[in-house]
């Protein structure tokens, strides 16, 4: 538990007067190790710890305050500031149909999240939703989204294997307009950020339909590469929001910080299970608390 470790480390700072480079050295090290154990990217850890150090140095330690708790408080504030920045609501403020594009690595949870988002929009916001299967590669990917759509009684574009994903996207917007859809959610195939062809494909989908929301879907257990993956997706697509999935697991979720540092995109939703209603709006304090451990 980082809080306990820091409290123990800082016990000797009681009544020390001021936090100095020397007397917080051990606390800084504990913080660094804890963030690395939480899978926060190495460079992101360095930058964050540097920020915390700057704020902490020279801080007066009132006799009554536990310096460890104050140090933790500064750190927690920095985390919440990082994660809390930006508009966390979904951008549907466009002339309908608003288009949401799902993007991310293989297996991150895009298709399941598309279903969850449709369910949320239909039930909570009374929106008419069209789900669009644009993954023509993965076996039964189209079936998967069609099954989810049927389950929640939401319209689904009749994609077939062999169609071109950019073409599907364009035609689905026409279809959506004809069927008075408020929101169109386009599910795409998982892809590696280093796969030029596939990154071109998703960039072409974006250019063709101009989504108002481009959601980067990331697995909460993602490790160090979260920075590079997110940065490339962001460079190609200018992502507008992040969804962190599988948060019902026990991963600390440091990837959330890495992705935030790499893209500045607000974390909008959190996947909390396999079921269609296990989907939550993001709470910065909860994520921060979990990363801290």
């Amino acid at each position, binding site marked *: 538990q980082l809080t306990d470790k820091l409290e123990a480390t800082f016990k000797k700072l009681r009544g020390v007067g001021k936090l100095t480079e020397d007397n917080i050295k051990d606390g800084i090290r504990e913080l660094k190790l804890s963030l690395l154990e939480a899978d926060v990217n*190495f460079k992101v850890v360095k930058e964050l710890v540097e920020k915390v150090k700057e704020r902490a140095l020279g801080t007066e330690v009132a006799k009554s305050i536990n310096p460890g708790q104050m140090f933790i408080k500064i750190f927690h504030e920095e985390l919440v500031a990082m994660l809390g920045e930006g508009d966390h609501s979904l951008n549907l403020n466009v002339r309908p149909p608003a288009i949401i594009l799902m993007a991310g690595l293989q*297996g991150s949870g895009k298709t399941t999240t598309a279903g969850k988002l449709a369910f949320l929009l239909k039930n909570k916001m009374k929106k008419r939703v069209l789900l669009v299967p644009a993954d023509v590669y*993965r076996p039964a990917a189209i079936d*998967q989204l069609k*099954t989810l759509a049927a389950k929640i009684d939401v319209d689904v574009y009749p994609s077939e294997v062999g169609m071109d994903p950019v073409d599907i996207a364009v035609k689905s917007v026409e279809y959506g307009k004809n069927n008075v859809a408020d929101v169109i959610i386009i599910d795409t195939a998982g892809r*590696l950020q280093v796969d030029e062809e596939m990154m071109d494909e998703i960039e072409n989908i974006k250019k063709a339909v101009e989504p108002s929301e481009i959601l980067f879907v990331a697995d909460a257990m993602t490790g*160090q590469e979260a920075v590079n993956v997110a940065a490339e997706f962001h460079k190609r697509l200018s992502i507008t929001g992040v969804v962190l999935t*599988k948060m019902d697991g026990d991963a600390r979720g440091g990837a959330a910080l890495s992705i935030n540092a790499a893209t500045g995109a607000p974390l909008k939703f959190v996947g909390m299970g*396999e079921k269609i209603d296990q989907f939550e709006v993001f709470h910065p304090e909860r994520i921060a608390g979990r990363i801290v451990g």
Partner: protein
Amino acid sequence: LFRNNVVDDDLIEELEEILYTADMGVATVSWLMDLVNKNRSQFKSGDDVKLFLKEKIREVLVQTYKPFPELTEKPTVFLMVGVNGAGKTTTIGKLAHKFIAQGKVPVLAAGDTFRAAAVEQLKVWGERNNCTVISDKDGADPASVAFNAVNSAVSKGADVLLVDTAGRLQNRVNLMEELIKINRVIGKAKEGAPHETIIVIDANNGQNALTQAKQFSEAVKVTGIIVTKLDGSAKGGVLIGIAKELGLPVYLVGVGEKIEDLRPFDPNEFVDALFE
């Protein structure tokens, strides 16, 4: 703080960046940097230190190395387990292809009766391989699918049975209980089965992969690992910690989404890639 002319702060920083960004984790990096410190007088250059580190990592992987198992039973039963989205179903498709290329007859069991279109997905892999897929309707008890599949494979005279399971997170107690039941029921259908229980691990995972390996091993007798998505930019350094703590061999690596994208695990290639 250790120091000599070669092992200075800059080198330590450089090495830590390489090791951490490869997803090796705090315990593995600490272990390696301690070794560097103990041996600091022997290093003449930064490259010396890197070679030393490569050797230490290689030793761990060579020690736990085991080639992909031979088929010793008829059918040899493989239970495929792992967290959601790791690549289990796709890997089964690739394994079937591998066995067929060796002249063996595989049967696949659609043990994920929960997720949307999971059975359909495995059936496509069955068609691609032209091999039998044993399945039941959605929502059926996965243990009964596994049980039926073992009996089917036996009566067909199949060489190998690959049992697919639903993805599950290791901290979800009821799902781990379900897995324990599937494992037990397979044993009821054929004594000694499953002969291999393979955990499929996504190379993009950070330290949670170690927790996965530990907790899945506590629930069932995990015999080996297949790591997927090594065609991406992730290095899979967490495998070192898994090797050290659990002694589990990495049998194969997934390097893509096509049927032939499965290769034997090579400790030397893996170590070289960590430092690229």
